[in-house]
């Protein structure tokens, strides 16, 4: 009897089987946190690139990650975007999406966009095409083969072009852009894809002072609507944009706070300047106060 009841339950006509339902793409940020990284560890050949790292990114904030070379910043981005699998720990996007279960393409589809350290755009194609390829569309093979660009999509591309200030370069090959323009185009590609979380690796490396200023304004304007995580070495730049700064050291979080707090933090000064200087630094800081 039980079997019959169970079978009936399975074949109830007013329900759809769970595995046939489309997976929810909506990101649940009811707790106002968009990215949960907990107890994350990964090692390469015995070297602990990420060591028991915990990090929470609030929805809509602009967060800066700083740290010396080998602190694990890029590895962290690799794990979030699905390129590297961690040894242990968890990464959740909102409360419903376990990012460790997905591959790069699926994570991108969920709304995590990544800008590489070295500006990476499709050099042989126009700026417009670069953005067209980034649009949030069905990215399967067949739908792409028969895809046509709609009016709303064109409008969206033009809007992005305006945001990143490349309207004039619309039909140029992306390869002919300057270094700074390529960086902006890459950020624009993340915008065109309607990414909710933008992971931006060294956006101002190799930029002129003027370009750096423009980039800072762009990133600040994006925060709020998007959540922006910036990895950067340029302290001036970090100071100019950051609300909250997280310092990574040897694969773990060393300190977190505003830029001023970070600069007074003894542990940070120790790591960056060495112990002796740390004492004198705090001393001078004390005198200055």
């Amino acid at each position: 009897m039980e079997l019959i009841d169970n079978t009936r339950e399975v074949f109830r006509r007013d329900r759809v089987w769970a595995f046939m339902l489309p997976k929810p793409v909506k990101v649940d940020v009811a707790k106002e946190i968009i990215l949960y990284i907990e107890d994350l560890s990964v090692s390469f050949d015995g070297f602990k690139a990420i060591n028991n790292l915990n990090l929470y990114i609030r929805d809509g904030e602009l967060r800066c990650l700083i740290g010396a070379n080998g602190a694990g910043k890029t590895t962290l981005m690799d794990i979030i975007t699905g390129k590297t699998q961690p040894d242990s720990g968890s990464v959740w996007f909102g409360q419903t999406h376990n990012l460790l279960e997905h591959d790069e393409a699926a994570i991108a589809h969920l709304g995590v966009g990544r800008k590489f350290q070295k500006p990476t755009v499709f050099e042989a194609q126009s700026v417009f095409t670069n953005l067209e390829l980034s649009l949030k569309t069905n990215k399967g093979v067949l739908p792409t083969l028969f895809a046509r660009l709609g009016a709303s999509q064109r409008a969206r591309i033009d809007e992005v072009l305006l945001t990143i200030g490349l309207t004039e370069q619309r039909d140029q090959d992306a390869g002919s852009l300057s270094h700074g323009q390529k960086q902006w185009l890459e950020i624009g590609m993340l915008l065109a894809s309607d990414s909710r979380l933008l992971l931006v690796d060294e956006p101002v490396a190799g930029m002129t002072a003027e370009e750096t200023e423009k980039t800072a304004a762009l990133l600040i304007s994006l925060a709020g609507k998007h959540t922006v995580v910036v990895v950067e070495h340029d302290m001036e730049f970090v100071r100019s944009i950051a609300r909250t700064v997280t310092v990574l050291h040897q694969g773990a979080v060393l300190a977190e706070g505003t830029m001023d707090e970070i600069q007074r933090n003894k542990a940070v000064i120790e790591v960056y300047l060495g112990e002796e200087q740390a004492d004198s630094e705090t001393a001078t800081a004390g005198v200055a106060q």
Partner: protein
Amino acid sequence: MTTLTALLQHQIFKRSSEPGAAVMPFVVLLFGVTLFASVGNLWFAEGSLFYVSTYTITLLGKYLCYALLALAVDVVWGYCGILSLGHAAFFALGGYGMGMYLMRQIGDRGVYGNPLLPDFMVFLSWDKLPWYWTGFDNLAFAVLMALSVPALLAFVFGWLAFRSRVTGVYLSIMTQALTYALMLSFFRNEMGFGGNNGLTDFKDILGFSLQSDTTRVFLFATTAALLAIILVVSQAIMNSRFGKVILAVRDSEGRARFLGYRTERYKVWLFVYSAIIAALAGVLYVPQVGIINPGEFTPINSIEVVIWVAIGGRGTLIGAVLGALLVNYAKTRLTAIFPEAWLFALGALFVLVTLFLPKGLFGFFADMRARFARPSVVNPEETR
């Protein structure tokens, strides 16, 4: 209908610098040459000014098959950066499919006069046809198999290789190993494909004698028509968003992946498409040349195709076709005059083109045209 004419106009009057821009003029030219050669062979007597010999017709047909093969390599190499050194495998498999059909058409006219078995099976004293030869009496079935077996092979190979993210020179070596392995197995008599000698001594196709001028002209014209169709289809594919993704994968696969494209699927389907074109080239090649043997699988053949494409110009479709036609014409000529020198000439040509014309001949002429057509547009950086 209006959209079709608009599309055609758009295709014909495209800027010459755009990739694949010259497809329509080339198709028209191909049509003209085919018509001229066919009429010249069938309606004009020998000795007439317009007479085209059957030898020439067959030679042209062979060149067009090579052009189709070069197109297949260009699609994966020029547009997606997958340097396949094993496309001869798909070509030869297609050829074997057609060869099996032609073998079955011989019937009892073979040397041994056996109505059931091809000569080489009688020679090996087999008493019945292997199971995989069944159905090859039917041309449609034979062609279907000749195209779908290489397609399946490409799918399985591509799926395994691209999903494991094998790229670059490692992939090239694997494709070469693939064709080499196939060559070794087809050389074996117990494979049931004629071993060392392959399949030959063909008599007729669909009841028409392969020796007759009309059949030869028909085969040549079919090859030309299919080349034209595949050129147009390939251009349409490369102009679609799929083609743009393919270029994106070539230039930065990681970027494309992080934008949400499953790049391995794109690569697999492009590879399958390319393999089908190569197989079709083989299908058309065998009845015109009259023999298929394991020698067609040699890695050297595959490398030669890559050289045609490099010389003609990668990623332009037409460049690959022209490269194949030019190099093979030069080969026919040079090997008649000075056979030993051919491989040196080919090697030298490859080195020179790689050094001085990285975009191949087609790219070189496109650049020249762009430079002379618009001399007013000068880069301000240079004049300063």
